[in-house]
């Protein structure tokens, strides 16, 4: 799914176009950056409600080409500039994380599948 298709499906807004109009194959939604770092795949769309410079850094480190901010949270200019510099595209959804994910899943964008159990302390 490409950035314009994603924006159409969630009735969202493209705030920054990605450097390359890449086709994303999976999506992953989390507010925990550690989880994103642990499960990121290249060509993966990242959905998050967390707005700070580390969100962009996390995507940059993980080769994530697109970030979709949910719950109508519009990031400040500083973050958009950071994303632009890193070639990462930014989208905005006015739906919650749950509903945004549901719309995309319904439109055929798959998740990363079953994960292994990790015993936590």
């Amino acid at each position, binding site marked *: 799914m490409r950035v314009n298709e994603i924006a159409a499906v969630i009735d969202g807004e493209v705030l920054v176009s990605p450097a390359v109009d890449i086709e994303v194959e999976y999506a992953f939604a989390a507010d925990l950056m*550690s989880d994103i770092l642990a499960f990121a795949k290249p060509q993966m769309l990242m959905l998050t409600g967390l707005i700070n410079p580390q969100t962009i850094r996390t995507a940059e480190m993980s080769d994530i080409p697109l970030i979709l901010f949910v719950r109508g949270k519009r990031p400040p200019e500083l973050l958009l500039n950071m994303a632009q510099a*890193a070639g990462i595209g930014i989208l905005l959804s006015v739906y919650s994380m749950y509903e945004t994910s549901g719309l995309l899943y319904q439109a055929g964008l798959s998740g990363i599948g079953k994960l292994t159990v990790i015993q936590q302390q």
Partner: protein
Amino acid sequence: MSQNFSLFARMNKDLPLSILHELTYEIQVSEVMSPQVSTLPPTISMRDVKNVMRSQRISGVPIVSTEQQKLLGLVSVEDLIRALEQNKLDAAVTEFMATNLITALDEEPVVEALKRLESTGFGRLVVVDKMGNLAGILTKGDIMAGLLRTLEKAYLQVEQLQQDEQSHHFFAALNSDETSLTLRYRVQAGDFVKGGQASSNIKKALQHIGATPQLARRVAIATYEIEINLIIHTDDGGYIVAEVRPTQIKVVAHDDGPGIADVALARQPGYSTASSKAREMGFGAGMGLVNAERCADTLHVWSAWSIGTRVEMTFDVAVQ
């Protein structure tokens, strides 16, 4: 004469004309002919010719003088049939062999021989040298095989060139007994705005010097987790030092405290002592060291309470 295998005709239709055609001008007959040829002396009888043809499964044999290798003629199945019809199997081969031969010169380009094959409809040409001595036999199959060999050689050369170019990507252009590149970064404690710059710069550096995307990503994610740890947990920040070698990348993070009370516990998934500020930033899930360990090939942690911590990770550079 049915030309069901007219190489020449095909070249003008569905074979890439320019390359193959050029090659037939470049390659000499001697490069593609079969040089190992069975020959027979002029003294042999047609009966013996028949036996040789049957046992060696060949349909034509050059007749050469015994003293020198001078080509005298060519005896084929057709000549043998004539001898059988005339009931003259005991006659000498010289009585039946063809002497007015269409030959190819060993030094001429393949294209000339090919033209002669096409125009006569013969299956083979006897190849002679300038002195008229037998040098070999040339069939269309030989020409085809020779062209393919030449194409293969050219292909391998291109492949080799590409490989050479690739090896220049990762350090190969730098020659020394031990080459390494060291990148040092100061990481400030509590700086969630600038945090991640060291990892970002290391990733960019690796990409610039030709690391594969997988390698750059592995190093970036692991370094980022460790960098975030310096931001979250240290009193005065710390340093990240990446030492890049052609075969291995080593990333070391060190700080002056406070240190980790229980290293084994800190390496367990989900264990965290992070502040609420760190959690607001999306960290402190107790997965940092676990993630870093997953990305690195080795990860060691040394720590002493109130002294400091040193995390050392290595990443093997896969042979490209």
